[in-house]
């Protein structure tokens, strides 16, 4: 059995301020749920910058290698054909395709990593802690398992930041 404390706001500013205060008061933030990407919330939640840009670079590098080496191997090693007297290894002419494979690998690789890492995949059922989070509701979910969880304080912070609803939910494993 897991316990969560769910606080709802009607705008992003209260959400960001409240998140900041919850964080500073030592509450454990499970997640926030918002209808759009709220700017500044990542800092308030203390999220580290995503490492996906490194993944993107890695895939781009693989794409470039595959593009360049693939063309070289096909044109100069596997089956060299004399076309207009051009060298078998026509590296300048391989650049456009190498560029395209770089972009293709980087784009697809990054997106698939994102989907895999975040679990946003076809057939998945969303975990919904409060209704309307894809519409106009901003929600903070706090983990309430710890004994140190101070309900009074949590309610107080919710009131100060004009949350319009807060309640506990239980979730079976």
């Amino acid at each position: 059995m897991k316990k969560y404390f769910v606080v709802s706001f009607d705008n992003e500013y209260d959400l960001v301020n409240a998140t900041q205060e919850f964080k500073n008061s030592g509450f454990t933030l499970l997640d926030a749920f918002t209808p759009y990407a709220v700017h500044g919330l990542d800092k308030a939640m203390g999220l580290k910058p995503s490492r996906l840009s490194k993944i993107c670079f890695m895939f781009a590098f693989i794409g470039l290698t595959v593009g360049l080496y693939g063309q070289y191997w096909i044109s100069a090693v596997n089956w060299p054909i004399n076309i207009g007297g051009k060298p078998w290894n026509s590296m300048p002419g391989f650049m456009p395709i190498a560029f395209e494979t770089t972009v293709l690998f980087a784009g697809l690789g990054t997106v698939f990593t994102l989907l895999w890492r975040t679990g946003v995949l076809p057939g998945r059922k969303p975990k919904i802690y409060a209704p309307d989070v894809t519409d106009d509701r901003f929600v903070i979910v706090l983990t309430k398992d710890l004994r140190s969880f101070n309900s009074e304080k949590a309610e107080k912070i919710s009131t100060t930041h004009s949350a319009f609803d807060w309640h506990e939910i239980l979730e079976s494993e």
Partner: protein
Amino acid sequence: MKKMGEIIMANHVESLRKPLVHGNKNLKTVTNDVVGIMDKKPTGLWWIGFIIAASALTLGIVAVSYQIMTGIGTWGLNKTVGWAFDITNFVFWVGIGHAGTLISAILFLFRQKWRTSINRSAEAMTIFAVICAGLFPIIHMGRPWMAYWMFPYPNTRGPLWVNFRSPLAWDVFAIGTYLIISAVFWYIGMIPDLATVRDRAKTKVKKWIFGFLSFGWSGSFRTWHRYETVYGLLAGLAAPLVVSVHTIVSFDFATSAIPGWHTTTFPPYFVAGAVFSGFAMVLTLLIIARKAMRLEEYITVKHIENMTKVIILTGGIVTLSYATEFFMAWYSGNGYEQFVFLNRAMGPFAWAYWIMVGCNLLTPQFFWFKKIRTNMIMVFILSIFINIGMWFERFVIIVTSLHRDFLPSAWAMYKPSYVEIATLIGSFGLFFTLFMLFIRYLPIISIGEVKSVLQFKGRHGGEK
């Protein structure tokens, strides 16, 4: 900590001085307006558009089937003019497909917030245009069932691979990558909105379909955080990609030794022309869509105006390119080059040349006037003129450079056959049919992104 929130708030208020969306929207009304379109019965205007588009598509299917069964002889091509209508249409559609990614990627990187209302539909348009473009080289093969030979794969023919030194092979990769990346960019951008539709769906079937399509999106900020990173990365990848695609299409011509094609200015000239024609097509479509779907408060006159300004700029670059081509033909001292350009302006296809010049040089100049920029009917008419002009640009480049080659005994004229004209109409039919279905069945405006740029108003009516 209070302070930080205030700073964030101040930043938001500052960046939202002028509302990008009219009608005092709040978060709820944005959802209701955009998703509401998908619940409502379509307007009469939508049905008219859809029926016309579907009829044109049917005509195209008949024409292409006849051509594939009979052969390329059904087209007006001859030994001298081996590329004409089909490649004109190909380049035209690839060009149209450039505005969507420009709006979604390049304007995103430049932090142009007004793009949020139009990026979804412009991206959809890009994908449909690239599909139309891809059709033409395939049907030009004569044996389209062999189209997979364009890809390098281990095979039993030798192994005979594709020739990577050929710009036509580059095209396959460029267009293929562009189609895939644009489609992924479009779909990833749509996942949060599909979840919004899912959460509002009333029928079981709709819940299931959108539940599947939205990949279990829950609005989790941990996901949003990574999602935003990836969106930025994709925009960064798509921006050079969009430039590379038309550059490579221009290489189809520029790497040949044909006077009129053999020019180093082709890549920037083609890219500017592509953006020019793409924006004209976005205008044509959005002026219809905002009316047919009653989205005037989202796609505002300001959006239309901004796009006309991009057209003035790119139209200027296109004009400069026309002038540069003529100057270089003269300055090069190459008799063949000079002949081709004089033949363009004064030869048997002069009418096409002057339609091109008239439409592409003069039309954008009207957009200097605010009265015209804000008059939707005028913008609509002018955007169609630019579409026509840009189609003729490709026709002029291709046909006039080919029809009188080095040997006067080989000179020939070109006249499109009915099959070719029907195929062109059919490609428009395909494009508009897909677009009409899109605006009916998917969220046409990026709900999440519009919400993020709304001038904020609380749920209970109080202005923050």
